[in-house]
């Protein structure tokens, strides 16, 4: 047996060394307690950071009562527009890239478990959230789309295994180690991470978890390209059931929930049937639809599928005003 264990040890030694570099360097920042910086030149899970931030803030005594849910599109909306003069509003942005209805449901359950009330909740809905069944959609693969185990059906083991795999896969490891040891960024590393010297952080608020996206240089390669518009399909029975469950969960907490539909660059057509279904689930005045807002000047976009904060906030206020809500 000893000889066998020695054999394995010798064989696995290089692998153990590589894994130890991962543990020490923690390139995706998912192993060690989170710091105050959110963005990094190495893309990682926003969801992990958002949930960890929330838990950390809760342990520091923060109370929240107003939440924003949705995928990366939520970056457009900020506290100013969401709270809109409500002095008792304690806002937290709980959106994350590649979000699904399952993630939102689990986040509401987490909020409940942590003792926060949900006075108001805004769900930014689009076709990508609806079609993203259990985070398995092929368009949502990669570290950015990994979800925190507490708000997904990921186990901690599979969550960490996924990141270890990203580290070892597609020559990320080689790029990362060469960069760490040599200190220089090369063009061939572009597929794995941005040039740290040129990378600009998106300022983010540690209390609300909201991101300021007015900084156009954060992702210099991303720019506006017009895209074909897509209609949001009608709700399936499964989607209706999940949305009903979300509404119930929030109502049980005596909260009010609004559903806001886009728009994004890739969608603007909302069918009457979809609206009817959403109204039946959430209530007449709770579905806000921004239609035909595609023809915007480029300056109001953050990139080709996300609004800037400026436009997001204007639009949200305008929607709420048209819905007879007052500041």
């Amino acid at each position, binding site marked *: *047996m000893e000889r066998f264990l020695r054999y394995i040890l010798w064989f696995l030694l*290089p692998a153990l060394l590589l894994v130890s570099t991962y543990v020490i360097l923690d390139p995706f920042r998912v192993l060690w307690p989170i710091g105050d910086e959110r963005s990094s030149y190495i893309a990682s899970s926003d969801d992990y950071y958002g949930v960890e931030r929330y838990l950390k803030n809760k342990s520091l005594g923060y109370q929240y009562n107003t939440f924003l849910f949705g995928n990366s599109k939520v970056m457009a909306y900020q506290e100013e527009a969401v709270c809109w003069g409500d002095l008792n509003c304690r806002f937290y942005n709980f959106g994350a890239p590649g979000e699904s209805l399952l993630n939102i449901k689990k986040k509401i359950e987490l909020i409940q478990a942590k003792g926060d009330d949900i006075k108001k909740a805004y769900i930014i809905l689009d076709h990508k959230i609806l079609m993203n069944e259990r985070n398995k959609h092929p368009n949502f693969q990669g570290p950015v789309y990994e979800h925190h185990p507490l708000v997904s059906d990921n186990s901690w083991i599979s969550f960490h295994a996924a990141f270890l795999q990203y580290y070892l896969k*597609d020559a990320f490891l080689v790029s990362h180690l060469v960069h760490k040891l040599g200190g220089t960024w090369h063009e061939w590393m572009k597929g794995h991470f941005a040039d740290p010297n040129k990378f600009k952080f998106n300022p983010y608020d540690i209390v609300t978890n909201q991101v300021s996206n007015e900084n156009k240089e954060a992702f210099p390669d991303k720019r506006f390209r017009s895209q074909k518009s897509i209609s949001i399909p009608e709700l399936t029975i499964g989607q209706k059931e999940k949305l009903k469950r979300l509404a119930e969960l929030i109502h049980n907490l005596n909260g009010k929930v609004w559903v806001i539909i886009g728009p994004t660059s890739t969608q603007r057509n909302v069918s009457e049937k979809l609206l009817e279904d959403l109204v039946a689930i959430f209530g007449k005045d709770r579905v806000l639809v921004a239609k035909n807002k595609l023809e915007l000047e480029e300056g109001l976009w953050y990139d080709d599928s996300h609004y800037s904060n400026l436009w997001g906030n204007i639009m949200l206020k305008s929607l709420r005003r048209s819905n007879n809500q007052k500041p």
Partner: protein
Amino acid sequence: MLFNSIEFLIFLPFFFFIYWEFRRSLKTQNSFTLAASYIFYGWWDYRFLGLIFLSSLCDYLVGLGLDKQSSKLNRKILLFTSLSMNLGLIGVFKYYDFFISELGQLLNSFGLQANLSTLNLILPVGISFYTFQTLSYSIDVYNKKMPTCKDPIAFFSYVAYFPQLVAGPIERASNLIPQFQKPRKFEYAEGVKGLKQILWGLVKKVVIADTCAGHVDYIFSNHETLPASILILGAIYFAFQIYGDFSGYSDIAIGTSRLFGIRLMRNFAYPYFSRDIAEFWRRWHISLSTWFRDYVYIPLGGSRMGKLGSLRNIFIIFLVSGFWHGANWTFIAWGGLNALFFLPLFLLDLNRKNTSEIVAEGHHIPTLKEFMQMGITFTLTCFAWIFFRAESISHAMLYIENIFDQSILQSPGDPNLSITPIILLSFFVPLEWLFRQREVSLEALRTPRVFRFAFYYLLIYLIIQFSGDQIDFIYFQF
């Protein structure tokens, strides 16, 4: 728990160390094996553990009963109890809905409106494997081919032994139970062999089978719009997908078991290097083929029934074997086709021609004749696989029709398909050819340790590179 999951990577060493810690007490070691096997299975769905327990309990009690009974009638009743219990379980969970919907359609075709409702039951993983395993015990004890196992822990461990619980090899009680009844000793050579077998099994599953899987799904879903050349590729890819998937699973199962000092039977012996269909069936899913041979074909009279009776028996085992794979006419058609391919060999007494040695033994390359024989056998096999993979008989027929309808010379280029499987197979097939004389493929490497380790690392790198979402093993559904 899947063999290609991170959970198993943690479970295996954990189990290994504790298992050998208990080496001084056989009872404790077996109890621990049983508990770990139930955890392994329960990881998928703990509710179905009851079925394994029920099946094990029934056959354990039947075994004890057979030991005490000398009356022929009583012994028959006991055997019947075991058969009805195990076949009843498979019948309800696997075939009930199929028969009900087929019966409904049949009655409808006669203008009778039947209100038959299906149960829509989830098929418990591995039910066809462990029920066949327990059945073999009851039949062997009934036929007095083996003694009754009176140790319940050893017996329950035999049924639930995790490496082969959900997808085989379907072990014989006479091989496995005695191993649970005597102390095991760790052997270095077996341990190393086991690791090599696990590694090669993972390569087959993650690199070969899973890479082919995406292409196969695309081709079989879009066969109406794709050229014949791609449809042929689709059938070939599926042949390697199912081989990589299932033989990969068997390799991991057998290799894992070697780490615990328990030898499982060989399940695959390089079947695609067979020179005829009869040889293919001696090399493919050996544990199932021999199960049907011993418990269906021979009791039916085997080859002692004259040509006509033997032919009937051959068709029965091929059709039953097809149906064992699933409640769909496609599997029956697949079994029937293989019986038809087997038929000429049987009639010409050529079915026992290539029984022992592997093709081109002691040579690096096959003769032209051997090459042609292997080519023809592989082509026939791929043709039959189309039925196995298709959703329905009409789907398979359309697929085949499209192969012959469209230009075979049209370029197989399609933006949704990559060249990766072809590149991988162009390395994999020659490697399998080099390994073909060894039961444990990687044992064939006779280079200095540094080169061997470098090769193993390359394989591990490929496994990491090609691993994405864990894809279930195909044979879990059977």
